[in-house]
């Protein structure tokens, strides 16, 4: 691998006639090269295996850490709402509920938005603008999550508190069913705010993947549809979307995986209340926010273990979602490639 080694390879290649003594040294060098090649091969293989070891390490350590809590609470842990560090009664229902609701809200907003943006980028946008706009949207993914958090807490939440939330409360206050969804005082922070911030954060993932799969639709199909007189929307609705369905779903699942596990941004704006409320304006908590807020302050083995169990649940959920996402994306890659 080093300069000297390369020199020898080149010398060997260049020297036309090999004498007896040179032949002996040639065998020696070749032997050494074979050895170093084999060593490098095994080294890279070990590194690849290390990736698997990392994953199993995460799983094993989480299971080990959560054993005390699992032994103490069993499956009740999943449906128990109380979270009381003083009496050491812990249940994961409120954080699980918060995680699912905020992610659901995020997907509700980000999926249509992302699809519309990819529609714009692939069908309407002039060529020279496509790349800059695509990059700008992807930059949203580059902004660290703590920045979304601080922005959400100081800029976005007060804005929502002053404008959007009172409006929603007035609008749906007298509508049955919906009124309980938008109940309570406008805190600013809460599940709706967390969902909105998450929507912005997963938007670039959904956009860039659906743009890529939209672009992978064979032009012939689209041209044929335009040829029989379809409008742009009809082409997208009846040709592009059906063709790109699996890929779009993969992108959506990937975004969902991100939203479920997102920590810092949510921690800032969720309000950290261990309770389950029907109103999406109410403060709540998520799995990741609970861990981030309480882990360093957790006293006692059972408290720590309960938090690690939350981590295990979160990892299990995101693992399943991300695995489905990858399987879908692999299917579309095989078709395109």
């Amino acid at each position, binding site marked *: 691998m080093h300069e000297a080694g390369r020199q020898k390879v080149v010398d*060997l290649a260049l020297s036309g006639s090999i004498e007896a003594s040179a032949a002996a040294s040639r065998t020696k060098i070749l032997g050494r*090269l074979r050895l170093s090649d084999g060593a490098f091969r095994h080294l890279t293989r070990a590194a690849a295996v290390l990736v698997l070891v990392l994953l199993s390490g995460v799983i094993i350590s*989480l299971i*080990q850490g959560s054993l005390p809590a699992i032994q103490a609470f069993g499956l009740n842990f999943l449906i128990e709402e109380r979270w009381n560090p003083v009496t050491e009664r812990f249940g994961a229902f409120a954080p699980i509920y918060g995680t699912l609701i905020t992610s659901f809200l995020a997907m509700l907003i980000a999926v249509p938005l992302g699809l519309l943006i990819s529609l714009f980028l692939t069908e309407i946008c002039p060529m020279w603008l496509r790349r800059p706009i695509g990059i700008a949207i992807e930059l949203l993914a*580059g902004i660290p999550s703590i920045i979304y958090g601080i922005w959400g807490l100081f800029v976005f939440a007060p804005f929502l508190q002053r404008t959007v939330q009172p409006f929603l409360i007035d609008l749906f206050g007298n509508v049955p069913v919906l009124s309980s969804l938008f109940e309570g005082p406008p805190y600013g922070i809460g599940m709706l705010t967390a969902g909105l911030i998450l929507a912005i954060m997963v938007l670039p993932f959904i956009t860039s993947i659906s743009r890529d799969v939209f672009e992978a639709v064979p032009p012939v199909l689209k041209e044929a549809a335009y040829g029989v007189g379809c409008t742009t929307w009809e082409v997208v609705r009846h040709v592009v979307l059906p063709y790109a369905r699996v890929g779009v779903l993969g992108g959506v699942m990937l975004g969902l*995986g*991100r939203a479920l596990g*997102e920590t810092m941004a949510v921690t800032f704006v969720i309000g950290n209340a261990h309770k389950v409320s029907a109103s999406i304006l109410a403060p709540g908590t998520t799995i990741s926010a609970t861990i981030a807020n309480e882990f360093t302050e957790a006293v006692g083995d059972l408290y720590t273990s309960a938090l690690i169990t939350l981590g295990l649940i979160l990892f299990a959920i995101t693992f399943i979602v991300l695995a489905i996402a990858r399987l879908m994306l692999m299917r579309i890659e095989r078709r395109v490639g």
Partner: protein
Amino acid sequence: MNLYARRRFRNHVILTLSVGATVVGLGWLVLILGALLYQGLSGLSLAVFTEMTPPPGADGGLLNPIIGSLMMTILAVAIGTPIGILAGTYMAEYGKYAKLTMVVRFINDILLSAPSIVVGLFIYEILVAPMGHFSGWAGAVALAVIVVPVVVRTTEDMLSLVPRELREAATALGMPRAHVIGYVSYRAARAGMITGVLLAIARISGETAPLLFTSLNNQFFSADLNAPISSLPVVIFQFALSPYADWQKLAWIGALIITFAVLALSITARALSATRTSK
């Protein structure tokens, strides 16, 4: 309205919505960057880079978290990059069609988007708890765990783009495989691989969740990796949630520094990979 007008109308509505969606998407970016500049720029001064984090009510800067972040980032890259490059090399060169490669690729893609707070818990369990105290080392290792999947992914992708003929030509000269990889593949894929490392640095420089209970925080200047060490994201987290106005101000300044460092890194990375692909 006849059928034709209705179809045209629907088409216009959707197209307008899609333009609107793009404006909203770009608008968020502008709003966030604008707020950062507005809140952070006014406080940005030399003192931020030369003074320690202050107690509430006093003047100060962000020197210790900046140093701590730099140390842990460098260390994490130093640990994670070689592992990532070697693993990516195996997947693209030696074991391109091996079953192991398929499994590793699948798992790696999952690790790539796995919640980073879980990484923090993992490192807490295997390093912090046995050692008995929080430390900069634990923080660096946690970040390294996040670096590995990013580098594996880009290395494999970039090496796979190297034309097979280059490798065949080198092999025909009698070069052993390790030399082909070192002198041909790596050189051809260099720009892309550097891009991967830059993206990994961008990714970890804003990571907060895995540091919360590995490196913790330190109010005082400390370059000791064996003790709790301060880092920019954790300080932002702590200061932003504090009730003190000057701490919140510092949090904004820190947020501004991180964001523009990260954006500069990812734009550089993009420029690098763009020149590579256009050639």
